[in-house]
């Protein structure tokens, strides 16, 4: 049996790619992980094709690596053991926008650029991570459990029902879309849980393509506020942000609430040519807490008013030493732009903000209790310092989660992708920092690349249980082998 012929039978000649330059493209991503080439890239366009591909892979024992975004960041789609990349880019339809129930049904290849601009016409937005890459798939963003920048909704997770092709080749719909005859049913598919005693969606999240191929999903969207007010709190250190995080979260004030170091803030602000990195470096504080208050649909100004009053009262009574500014000195007018920036994707055509510094960037995302973030950042700085890193060489973004019960931290390691030695060196610093942080209590729930070995080595019983799960859904071990602990 010739694999290529079999693939062509399934998706057609145009969609089975094995030209060297194409395979080369798929062998690397924006991460610092070493390149490895797939044997083929296929681009199916319906569920049956995906199903046939999976069945074929099972018959031939060939690895499959699902990919939905056009831009990848963590090395998950780099084939670790060869095989076929299943590129879902042709699944690019926004299938349904349900304004009444505030959800949207999209296919796996739909990107942020595509979705947010469409939803904006409906006064809606899917609450996404901080300025996502416009080419990134919306569905995989959430499958990767990237962290939404707006945390006011207690229910947070936006994914609802999904259609998936399991690694066995079985097609399955999770949540309420699992009903027979869907979509010709009373249910619309907005319940994410089940069916039965299993939350199938949980297995697909954080799976880095190892648990199946998602075809489409429903996602919640929220009202996109028209009336906003931005506040800035300049800080000398991240420690100063900790108490405000707790208080603001607990009182449920505002939409966005995040902390950026100067490096990250500069890479964001310089998307406007009128701001240049050098002068910003002089005027910006080392750290900046950014807060956006927004009005709802009804009586928006009144909502703003009571929230602002609560915010001012909190700062006056509890943080009198901190300045609550309604504009950012040296960055005129930014207070009006930021709300939209924070809710939109990074503009198409501009270099991605994480890449503006040195063209390459590898994120080290972790979760911690807010009060422990400053200490962990010190640990990171200490280790990185030993490698000659100076303040500002790492980008830092701290996102309080769920009314500040925890924080997500993104440490951005910048590197020059054209320098092999530079990349290698960054890998070494990254690995050392990651280990030191883990030993100090940083939690990696999305273990990419080297992080996987660190965490699975430590969490032995979890790892064992995970492998049992994997054996149920992927008995032949064909999906993205080499990722996670599989």
């Amino acid at each position, binding site marked *: 049996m010739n694999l290529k012929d079999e693939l062509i039978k399934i998706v057609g000649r145009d969609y089975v790619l094995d030209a060297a330059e194409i395979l080369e493209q798929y062998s690397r991503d924006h991460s610092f992980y070493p390149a490895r080439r797939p044997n083929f890239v296929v681009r199916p366009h319906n569920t049956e094709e995906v199903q046939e591909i999976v069945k074929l892979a099972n018959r031939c024992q060939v690895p499959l690596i699902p990919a939905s975004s056009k831009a990848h960041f963590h090395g998950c789609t780099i084939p670790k053991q060869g095989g076929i990349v299943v590129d879902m880019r042709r699944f690019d339809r926004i299938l349904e926008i349900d304004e009444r129930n505030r959800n949207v049904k999209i296919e796996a290849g739909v990107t942020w650029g595509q979705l947010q601009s469409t939803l904006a016409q409906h006064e809606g937005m899917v609450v996404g991570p901080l300025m996502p890459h416009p080419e990134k798939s919306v569905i995989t963003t959430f499958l990767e459990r990237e962290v939404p920048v707006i945390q006011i909704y207690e229910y947070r997770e936006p994914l609802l029902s999904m259609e998936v092709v399991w690694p066995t080749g079985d097609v399955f719909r999770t949540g309420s879309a699992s009903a027979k005859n869907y979509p010709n049913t009373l249910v619309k598919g907005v319940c994410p849980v089940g069916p039965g005693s299993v*939350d199938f969606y949980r297995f697909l999240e954080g799976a880095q393509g190892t648990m199946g191929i998602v075809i489409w999903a429903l996602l919640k969207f929220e009202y996109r506020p028209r009336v906003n007010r931005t506040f800035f709190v300049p800080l000398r250190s991240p420690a100063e942000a900790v108490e405000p995080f707790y208080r603001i979260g607990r009182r449920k004030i505002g939409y966005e609430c995040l902390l950026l170091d100067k490096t990250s803030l500069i890479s964001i602000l310089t998307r406007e040519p009128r701001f240049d990195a050098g002068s910003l470096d002089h005027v910006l504080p080392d750290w900046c807490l950014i807060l956006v208050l927004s009005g709802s649909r009804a009586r928006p100004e009144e909502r703003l008013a009571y929230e602002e009053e609560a915010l001012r009262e909190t700062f006056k009574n509890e943080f009198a030493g901190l300045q609550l500014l309604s504009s950012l000195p040296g960055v005129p007018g930014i207070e009006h732009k930021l709300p939209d920036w924070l809710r939109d994707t990074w503009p198409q055509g501009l270099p991605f903000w994480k890449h503006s510094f040195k063209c390459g960037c590898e994120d080290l995302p972790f979760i911690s209790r807010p009060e422990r973030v400053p200490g962990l950042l010190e640990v990171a700085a200490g280790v990185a310092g030993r490698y000659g890193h100076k303040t500002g060489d790492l980008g830092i973004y701290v996102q309080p989660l769920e009314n500040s019960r925890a924080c997500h931290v993104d440490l951005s390691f910048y590197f020059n992708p054209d320098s092999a030695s530079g990349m290698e060196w960054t890998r070494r610093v990254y690995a050392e920092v990651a280990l030191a942080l883990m030993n100090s209590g940083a939690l990696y729930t999305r273990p990419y690349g080297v992080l996987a070995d660190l965490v699975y080595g430590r969490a032995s019983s979890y790892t064992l249980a995970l492998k049992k799960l994997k054996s149920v859904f992927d008995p032949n071990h064909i999906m993205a082998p080499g990722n996670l602990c599989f």
Partner: protein
Amino acid sequence: MSLAPEVYDALEAVVGSRYITQDPVDCEAYSGSRGGHGKDLGMERVLCQPPAAVVLPGSTREVQDVVRICNRYQIPFVPVSSYWVTHCAPRVPEALLIDLKRLNSLEIDDRHMFAVVGPGVIYSQLLEEAMRRGLYTTTPGGGSQASVVANHLTCGFSPLNYRTGFAERRILGLEWVAPDGELVRMGSLAMQDDPFWGEGIGPDLRGVLRGYIGWYGGMGIVTRMAVKLIPFQPERLVPSGISPETALEFPANRIRWFNITFPTREDLVEAMYSIARNEIGAAVTKVPVFWRYIARAKSKEHFWEMWEAPGKEEEIKNSHILRVLLVGYTSEKHLEYEIRVLEDIVKDLGGQFRPTKQSDESWLKNADSVGMWWMTGGYASIEYTIDTLDCGVRGGEYLAELKTQCTPPLMPDYGDPGWFQMGELGHVGYLEFLTYFDPEDSEDNIHKVDEWYYVTGPKKDIEIGLYNGFTLQESPVYLSGPAYGPNFHLWMDRLKGAYDPRRISNPPWPADVDEVIEKVDWLERDW
């Protein structure tokens, strides 16, 4: 049935002689037959049995050792925490019941808004501690007597989910004694000695522990769980009154209930959507009409006198009452703002505010599901669908129509389409369709109710496409399994095989109903 002496001795060595029994009198107290949720049907009378023995372990370690002994000797076991829902009652005569009530530690991390609880802790206990700190969580409709751990593992629905969302998403770090006796720590506990975060490393194994509902004892034992608490408001709710009229008085500046009547059901539903779209409210719910009569009645007889009074049917058909809870989470002005928005909505849709008590009898710390049995003695919800609100309302209407075919023996409720409410700020809606019957009714009639509950309802679900997540497994799983997923039951079965290779965690669940249907002569399997 009793345990073999070597098994008993081994168990006794683990828990100590004070905490083990196999006396039939003790065991009888754990039988799930009759009484209790849904246990008044003919099927349950065949299905459930008392356990062969009961143990009361006092630590995770003891639970693990007990489960390992069960594995060694192939003893089926059933964990219970509060044993309120006796759904899990043993189905096989040789089962060991593992009663977890001794694991009742409760610690709260105020700053990070979570509680670490043992299975023996119930909701009112948690909420007392939480509300003292200006925090809260969903008290399930099933009542505050539900175990916090068991409820997070099995259900977790109430009007408060309008803000607090699905219970499975409120689970943080936990300790799980898998059916084979392995101790698996999940969430941040997998990595460190701190349960503050719930997501797995990589794929999230919380998905194995529950889906729409839990495994009812069929997937091992959670011995400790951290659960999220949500910011509430700072004022104290003061308890008042003497039983049966006890309530928590609201601080008027922070919390208010509203009862609003609408001219039509369509207006009521529009109001619910509008409230959600405007992101106000802490709960938005339309409750079954008879609850209001239960609340007013002085006795069961008084209830029936009111319910069957002439003209009631018409009155009830035209009664469209919405209950909305507003909370000033951020400040007093927050509440004032929400009241203004609510008033706008009500005015637009021709609604009228009606007087209502400004206290909590149900939902915040207490929930009175028990009163459900008061009217007739027998109760079973035939439907729990979560999808859009529109789906819930239409589903309720279909079921109300269907129900006329089975009334009597079901209690007449004049076409009420059930209990529906908004969840997750309107992204989802919930429908529960409650049915009542007289458990002392003739055998024939009880068998009719069996059919209604186990066959008619589930078939209708499949036909019209409802998502009766709860009853998917209450119904024969070989009927619902192929229809949903498809074949979710096969995936469950494979997971069971992976984690419970000896199939001893509450067998033969989830296929128990299927087994009984084969045995009884009043239900026929035609699927």
